Every structure is written in structure tokens, then in C-alpha cells.
């Protein structure tokens, strides 16, 4: 420490200011993000002896593992992989920002823990962090949720997987449309990117399939995690007499809890939020990473890799392929709504129901799909969605 400090003694007031600044930092750094219990890491030296060829798999999350949302869905999938596939050891790290921090985490998992497969789950990890690491460690496999892999452009040891969760949102829309008397639905959305818009559209189309007069009011919060705005949006929807609220934000916790308090029905997203809204929770569109992670885990143990081409670089699927699923129906859901919901699930799984059918109009009156044609779930055209369908109240810009 420098001996010059005496030229600048701190007064008590300045110390108080410092303490205030500290607590301000604590708040911004999301100090209160809960405590996740990792139930399955084998500790430092998992030398059980049972599996000589232990495979270390690393999972990295951008937020806490118990956020009732995106990260929790992945963490549950990871736990299922370890539970179902003998010989896999899981290392996990939560609340890793999309900066050099994630690069360092990946490196540390590879160099210290000996990870051979990494699942950095946040969308923003991909470019530049995963791509840079994949080039540096060509014998480690990197799997990324988001479907961003481009053949020939990206390294061979990178793969991507993603689910068509808008199929589940369609079913949620069917249930919501049945349960709402006035047909007024609400959607709290983070950002106007194709995935979000597609979820809003599918939810609306589902609702309008059972109630042609249904409308979806959309409010964008602008950020993936903006609890204050999410609560404001939910309250304002409740004030407008909206009867069912769903969302696409990182953690639906605030939306669900606020809506429950206001006595409004809710439809979940990412994971099962029924404990947060025990009375009003209708159903929800959930990721089902357990099945995909388990089958990938079995392929790893069988010696299959991305590099040899044994594992496809892009894995996608919807309800039928167990990439997503519905939350169990809540107590408020009527029998006829359940019947309609189940029928929609069956039709989608059987491939009989195509969500995007012409004629389809946007909410500004343009025709996007002409009569007689349709866009199937896996049509890349839908991944460029930049419009709201008729029935959505709100604009993208």
C-alpha cells in the first residue's frame, strides 16, 4: 500500500458513500439470485472405479440453475442425462456472463476437469466464444442450443440443437383460448427476434383456432431479464381485463407470480411454473431437454462424435420428437379445454396439423402465406419471422 494515502484520508461520509455504492453493485450484480443445489456432480475426485472410461460433460448457464426458466430447463436436462447414462460425470457452472468469462470457464472445464463435451447453453455464447474455443480444442465437442450451426463455415466439432417450442405454444394458445371468456390474451415478450415473434404468432393461432375472435396483446420489455418491466406489463394487462397471460422472457417467475396475485390465468414457458401460480396456471410450453440430452449422452458413451459425422451437426424437433412438452394441466382447466388441448397435441404429433397455413394475414393486413400453401414447422422461412399474425395487438418496431 502506498504511503501517500495520507494525502487523502477518507471521512466517515465517504465510507458511507462507499457502502452505498457497494450495495448498489450488489443489486446490479443480481446478488439475490438464489442458491442452486447441484445434486449430481461427483466432487473433485470421482474415482468410483465402476466406469473406467468416465466421460466428463460440462454445462454452462448464463443465470442461476433455479430460475424457473431457460437455465432451469437445461439444468434439469443435464441432471437427467447423468441419471440415465452411466459413466457420465457432470460439471456445471451457473451465472456465467457472455464475455471472456465464458471462454475462461470452457477452458477451465477442458483443462482442469478434462471435459470432452461442453454444453454452453446461452444463445450469446456461440459467436465469438464457442467458435474460438472449438478451433483451439478440436477434439472437444461443443453443443449449443440455438440452431446457429452453418455447414462449412463453423468448426466440425460444433453442433447445435433446438426445439420448435412454438408447437407447444400453439397448444397453450388452444387451452388459453378455451379458458378465456372474452378472448383477450396477453404476451409479455423480451425482444422482437424471430423466435419470440414465432411463439407469439403460434400462441395466437392456437387461441384463434378455438375462438376466432381471440386477440393477443403483446408488450415488449426490451431485455431478457427485466423483472420490473415484466411486472408492470403484467399488471397493465390485468388492468385491461386480459384473462390469460403468457410470456417469453428468461425467467417467467415475475410474470407468473404477478398474474396469480391479480387473479389472472397464466400459461408458462421454458419450465414448469405451476408452483408459482398454483391456482391460475393453465399449462405451459416447456423445453424437454431430458430426452435429447439422454440420447446424446448415450451416443457419447458409444464413442460417437460430431467430428466423425456420427452425430448430426443440427438436431431439431418439436412435440413429436420430445424436444418440448406441455406442463400438466392446472386445476382451473375445464374438461373441454383439456380435450381440445390433447387433440391439438395428438394432431401435431401425428403431423396432421400444420400451424402456419394460408391464407395467413399479418396484423397490418399483408398476406404472408397465400391460400392453399403452408409452412411446415421445420421450414426455414419461419425462422425469419418478422411479422405478427392477425389477432396480435402490438407492433414490432
Amino acid at each position: 500500500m502506498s504511503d501517500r494515502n495520507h494525502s487523502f484520508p477518507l471521512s466517515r461520509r465517504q465510507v458511507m458513500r462507499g457502502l452505498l455504492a457497494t450495495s448498489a453493485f450488489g443489486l446490479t450484480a443480481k446478488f439475490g439470485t438464489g442458491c442452486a443445489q447441484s445434486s449430481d456432480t461427483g466432487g473433485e475426485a470421482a474415482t468410483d472405479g465402476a466406469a473406467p472410461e468416465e466421460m466428463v460433460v460440462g454445462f454452462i448457464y448464463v443465470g442461476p440453475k433455479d430460475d424457473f426458466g431457460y437455465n432451469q430447463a437445461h439444468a434439469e436436462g443435464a441432471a437427467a442425462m447423468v441419471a440415465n447414462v452411466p459413466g457420465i460425470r457432470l460439471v456445471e457452472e451457473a451465472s456465467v456472463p457472455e464475455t471472456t468469462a465464458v471462454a475462461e470457464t470452457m477452458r477451465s472445464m477442458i483443462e482442469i476437469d478434462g471435459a470432452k463435451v461442453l454444453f454452453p447453453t446461452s444463445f450469446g455464447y456461440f459467436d465469438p466464444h464457442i467458435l474460438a474455443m472449438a478451433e483451439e480444442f478440436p477434439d472437444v465437442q461443443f453443443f449449443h442450443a440455438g440452431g446457429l450451426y452453418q455447414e462449412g463455415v463453423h468448426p466440425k466439432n460444433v453442433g447445435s440443437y433446438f426445439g420448435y417450442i412454438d408447437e407447444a405454444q400453439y397448444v397453450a394458445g388452444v387451452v388459453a383460448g378455451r379458458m378465456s371468456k372474452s378472448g383477450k390474451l396477453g404476451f409479455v415478450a423480451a425482444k422482437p427476434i424471430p423466435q419470440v415473434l414465432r411463439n407469439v404468432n403460434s400462441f395466437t393461432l392456437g387461441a384463434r383456432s378455438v375462438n376466432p375472435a381471440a386477440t393477443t396483446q403483446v408488450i415488449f420489455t426490451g431485455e431478457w431479464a427485466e423483472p420490473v418491466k415484466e411486472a408492470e406489463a403484467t399488471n397493465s394487462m390485468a388492468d385491461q381485463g386480459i384473462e390469460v397471460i403468457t410470456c417469453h422472457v428468461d425467467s417467467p417467475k415475475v410474470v407468473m407470480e404477478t398474474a396469480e396475485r391479480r387473479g389472472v390465468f397464466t400459461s408458462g414457458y421454458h419450465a414448469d411454473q405451476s408452483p408459482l401460480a398454483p391456482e391460475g396456471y393453465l399449462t405451459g410450453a416447456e423445453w424437454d431437454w431430458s430426452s435429447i440430452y439422454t440420447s446424446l449422452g448415450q451416443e457419447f458413451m458409444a464413442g460417437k462424435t460430431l467430428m466423425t459425422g456420427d452425430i448430426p451437426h443440427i438436431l431439431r424437433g418439436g412435440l413429436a420428437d420430445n424436444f418440448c412438452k406441455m406442463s400438466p394441466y392446472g386445476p382451473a382447466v375445464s374438461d373441454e379445454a383439456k380435450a381440445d388441448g390433447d387433440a391439438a397435441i395428438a394432431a401435431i404429433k401425428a403431423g396432421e396439423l400444420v400451424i402456419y397455413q394460408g391464407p395467413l394475414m399479418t396484423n397490418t393486413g399483408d398476406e404472408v402465406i397465400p391460400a392453399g400453401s403452408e409452412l411446415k414447422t421445420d421450414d426455414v422461412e419461419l425462422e425469419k419471422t418478422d411479422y405478427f399474425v392477425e389477432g396480435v395487438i402490438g407492433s414490432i418496431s
Partner: protein
Amino acid sequence: MASTTTQGRFAGRSWRESLEPVVLPLGAVLSALVIFGVFCALAGANPLAVYGSIYKAAFGSWSAWQNTLIRASPLMLTALCTALPARLGLVIIGNEGALVMGGLAAVLAGLALGTSLPGGLVLLAMAVASLVAGGLWIMLAGALRHYRGVNETISSLLLNYIAIALMSHLVQGPLRDPAFVSKPSSYEIAEAAWLGNLPATRIHWGLIYGLVASALAYILIQRTTFGFAARTAGGNIRAARMAGLPVGKLTLAVCFLAGSCAGLAGMVEVAAVQKRLNESIVSSYGYAGILVAFVARHNPLATVLVSVLLGGILASGGILQRSHDLPDATVLVFQGIVFLCVLFSESLYGRLAIFQPRAARPDGAVASV
């Protein structure tokens, strides 16, 4: 005779006074370690094993050191944004906003020049743009303070939100690269203008920027008449005015320099890490810099040490989760405990009798204390 020669290097200060700035921070860190140890024990981990892991992950090997230094380098720059104005008696917490504005200006400069100039010149232009943008941003808070009497802490805090909103608007609108689908981002800057790593390391050049800026700031504040004037104004602004010091100019200049440092951190983040502008640039480096500055008592050389300490704590966050099953917030708990203890120890300066000079009494008389 013998006793005075051994103490001669303390230039007239008693050995008790000289011990104070060493013993207090050490005591604070030790208390923090004990408190955090209790926390770990309650969470079901062995505190000694946890400390061993923290040391290994942060400073135990050259790779761990690189991890630590990578995390420390933006903090060195953002800490100066609070440390410099503090010498003038201003509490500026607009580091995050200045960093974002610096990143924005750097991207604009980089995209505007494209490949029309050699990469080195583009980088220089990006650096200058970020220095100016970050500087003007904090100078705004300084000017509001000086001319209108607006509280600089509040205004600089609010400027953070404006900067982030402006950045979000631009990357979601005019600057947006439609081909980059993962999140709204600007176009990528040309590869020639990327800031590389130091030779044979994975540490980017931002570390050197941070070290040089800290050294320059130290010289400026401690060794120049400008710095002396700034410290005088910080000590007693009315006396400084009476003495004819240009307080207004000093305020604006110091705020500009402070903002430039944070702005440069934004440029490094864009040119060395993200290669384009998006919300990833908002990752609390600015707020962490406030902590660093306060713990370092606003001394620009001490900020380097504290940045490395914090970088080490952050670098060990992963191992706490992976090897000890501690929750992800543990590293924040540790960080919070260390900083609270160090800040609390600040309030003890001059209060503990044991460190006070006993000029009135002969040395032998205090031995019983």
C-alpha cells in the same frame, strides 16, 4: 541514536503510523476470510479446501494467472473512472455508461473506416473515439455539477441508463447486422482492426492499456502541479478557489480523463473480445470498477493490485461451483464480504490508539498499552 536510524526511512513518521496502512487492510482481509469460512462451513464445504481451490484457480499456475489478469484488465480502466474524480472530491459512478459509450464510439469508428486504412490506424481511431466519447460522457456529469450544482453521483448513475438505452436502440435499429441472428448486434469490425493477444498468452492488449493508464494517472495525480491542484480542490474547494485555482476547468478535465479510461475499456471489450457491439458489453465491469476504486482508496496504483485481487476472486468462481458444490452466488458473497471488510477498515484509520504517535511521551511509557 540507534532507534532513530532504523526508523529514518519513514521520514519522520512514527513506526506506529507506518504500520497502520499495512495492518488494517491485512486485518480486514483476514476477517473476511474468517467470515467467509463460516459461510462455507454452513454451506457444507470445508473452508480450508475452498481457500486452497480459490488460490489454485486464481494464482496457482500461469494459466490461472492469465485467467485472473484477463478478468482484471477491464477493471483497472473502469476503476480509474471513479478514482480520479474522487481526488477532486467527486463521487462518479457512471463507469458503466462511459464504458458503453466508449464501445459504441469505437464500433462506429471501426465500421466507418472499415478496411480503408491499415488495421493499426483503424485501432488508433477506435481508441481515440472511445477516449473522447467516454470522456465527454463523464464530463457531462462534471459540467452539471460545476455549472448547475447537480449531484454528480446521481447524474452519472442515470447517465449509465441513458448510455445503455442508446446502445440498445442503435444495435436493434440502424447498426443492426441482420445476418447475425443470435442477438441484436452491430456489424462486425474488420478483422484487421481486432485487438490481439499479448505474445504467447491469451491475455489481450487491454491489460497493457490498463497498466499504462494507471501509471499515467498515478503520475498525473501525485507528481504534477495539475494533480496537486486537483487534490487541493478535493481537500477544500473554497480554499482552492481562494487560492485562485481554476476549479471549473479542473473538474471538467479530471472528469474527461476519468471517462476516457472507462471508454477505453469499452473499446477493448469491442476490439478484443466481442468484435461487434451488443448488450454483452454491459457486464458490470463498470460497477465492479467502483468497488475497486473505493477499496484502493482511489490510489491509481493500488487500483491495479485490487483489480488483480478481484480478478482472482472472479476467476475462482467456477471452481467453487464445480469442485465444492457451492451455489453460483458464492463468489459474489465472497467478493461482498471482502469489500465490506476492507471498506469498514477504512473507518478505523486514525481511531485505533495503538497506531497513534506518542510524541508527548517517551517511548518506554507506552510499552504497557
